[in-house]
């Protein structure tokens, strides 16, 4: 049997807006992935540690507070430090387009902004997960 894709949906920082994170988590679960949701207010360290413990293939983070440029790259770095070089990291939230190139440079494979379809997120993961 093919191993199911495991996804950690995470809310880094202090932002409490988790409508999007929960909707995406449920859509990924309905698409057949195994999904773990961290809940609110996770530090980058907590997220990287959870990713390691849960042995996930994907880390999907959501921020609507504007702290994305500070927090997303930190998580990528910590994952790499822990040896999770193949973990696919994606992000979403209220993220100005101008910030996206730098986030991609920092190792965020894709950024989904308001209006994105959950089916696109599912497709992206299927296509890019290692």
């Amino acid at each position: 049997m093919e191993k199911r894709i495991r996804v950690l949906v995470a809310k880094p920082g202090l932002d409490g807006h988790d409508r999007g994170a929960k909707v995406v988590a449920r859509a990924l679960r309905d698409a057949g992935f195994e999904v773990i949701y961290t809940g609110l207010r996770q530090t980058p360290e907590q997220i990287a540690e959870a990713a390691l413990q849960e042995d996930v293939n994907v880390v999907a983070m959501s921020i609507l507070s504007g702290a994305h440029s500070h927090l997303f790259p930190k998580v990528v770095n910590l994952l790499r430090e822990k040896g999770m070089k193949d973990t696919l990291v994606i992000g979403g939230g209220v993220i100005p387009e101008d910030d996206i190139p730098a986030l991609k440079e920092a190792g965020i494979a894709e950024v989904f902004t308001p209006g994105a379809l959950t089916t696109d997120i599912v497709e992206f993961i299927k296509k890019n997960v290692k």
Partner: protein
Amino acid sequence: MSNEKVQAELAKYEASAEKAIARFPERPHLPEQRLYTPLDIKNTDYADEISFPGVYPYTRGVQPTMYRGRFWTMRMYAGFSTAEESNKRYRYLIESGATGLSCAFDLPTQIGYDSDDDISQGEVGKVGVAIDSMADMELLFDKIDLGKVSTSMTINAPASVLLAMYIAVAEKQGVTPDLLKGTIQNDILKEYAARGTYIFPPRPSMRLITNIFEYCSKNVPKWNTISISGYHIREAGSTASQEIAFTIADGIAYVEAAIKAGLDVDAFAGRLSFFWNAHNNVLEEVAKFRASRRIWAKVMKERFHAQKPKSLMLRFHTQTAGSMLTAQQPNNNIIRVALQTAAAVMGGTQSLHTNSRDEALALPTEDSVMIALRTQQIVAYESGLADVIDPLAGSYYVEALTNKIEAEAWDYIKKIDEIGGAVAAIEKGYIQKEIQDSAYKWQMDVESGAKTIVGVNKFHIKEESPKNLLRVDASVGEKQKAKLIEMKAKRDQAAVQAALTALEKACVDENENLMPHILTAVKTYATLGEICGVMRKVFGEYEAHVNL
């Protein structure tokens, strides 16, 4: 026409409609009932259920003359970066004709951390202004007369601390607390259920809230001590009926807690206020506002036996729905906000914040805020919607919808009563689950095309990435930290320590009102993080459990 006659005519109409539909099918995904008639409101008694503005059950509005006396308060939510920057924006808004202030605080402030805390890094000054101590509050209201302006503060878990700072700054300006006008959000239950900026567990949080009710009833009598908020519940994905049901259930919990703490219902109930969302469906929203007034009046009269008319009136602030703004074709949002504004006004709001077109992308620019404020002014002065009271009353559809939303909300309130009240329903995750299910259904409806969002799943165009978004200066965190270090070096450390020790002792004694102790502490320039740190130590922190 008698009801029998209407019934007969309706049957004829339905037959002809069916014939028309056979040739021209109706659009999919419409509400089941296509037309409303007197039959739909034949059981609605005008005197009992609708009545007159300013008269129980206040379906038609809380004041006898509504906007014919004066318009709603045009209150634009703003705040970002440092206190100095936000002060500039506030003064700009006042000069542009805004009639009340509404302060947005950054997340560290909302969760009781100072700007130099590790956990605050990357968040300082981002979604609101950073306030570490009374020194920042002095800058925030510099050259703004607190005796004149009415100020709303979106602050919940540490509401007691920010209110104390406001009182202290006013005192420094020579304004006594009895003159202060404004609102603190102070609604912790919806933080657990939908918004996420909780600190302490429910019990000590409810104590802080009742402490504020009691303190303000004696010392700050014009202050709205809570803004019981459905806004964020709706933003998190609830339906209109769920928005008012869960919020009124929260309201019931606050009133019960205050009565249990020994307060007389009429001593505080008149200062309770509500906060609703103005969503896209104009007539549904108008019906929702009307239904909410009727339910609250009945709750206060029948359940809590409040006597004063003020205690029975649901007064509310409204904000247009942030979650309905689209990042695509942002100018379309101006139209959405105008329609939402019309709904809020026809629904009888007491104050209104209109969102700006660019808020699905970033914090709004000054130009965008100006359009949003002008939207309110156009509706107020040009549209005629504010000239006659409750103009949609008597519409078969709006009255029937008001009844339907009321009935759905009562069903939820009953269910929550059975669970043991709002606190228990939140602790069990019931309210969160209901909201999540609605949010998921909405998203699936958008993705399947059952719901159309213009510019998102229909009528899209290739767009350039938007220019001129507001960016918060990246150095704001460092600036704020430097200010904090400087302030700490100047203050009287012994006084700070003594105030914090006294506060800790008061936290342990459940019969003590914490407000005077917090006020003493802020006046020594003890920081928000230090004060909340003391409370964290005694009260502990809330841990959420999420069931997807």
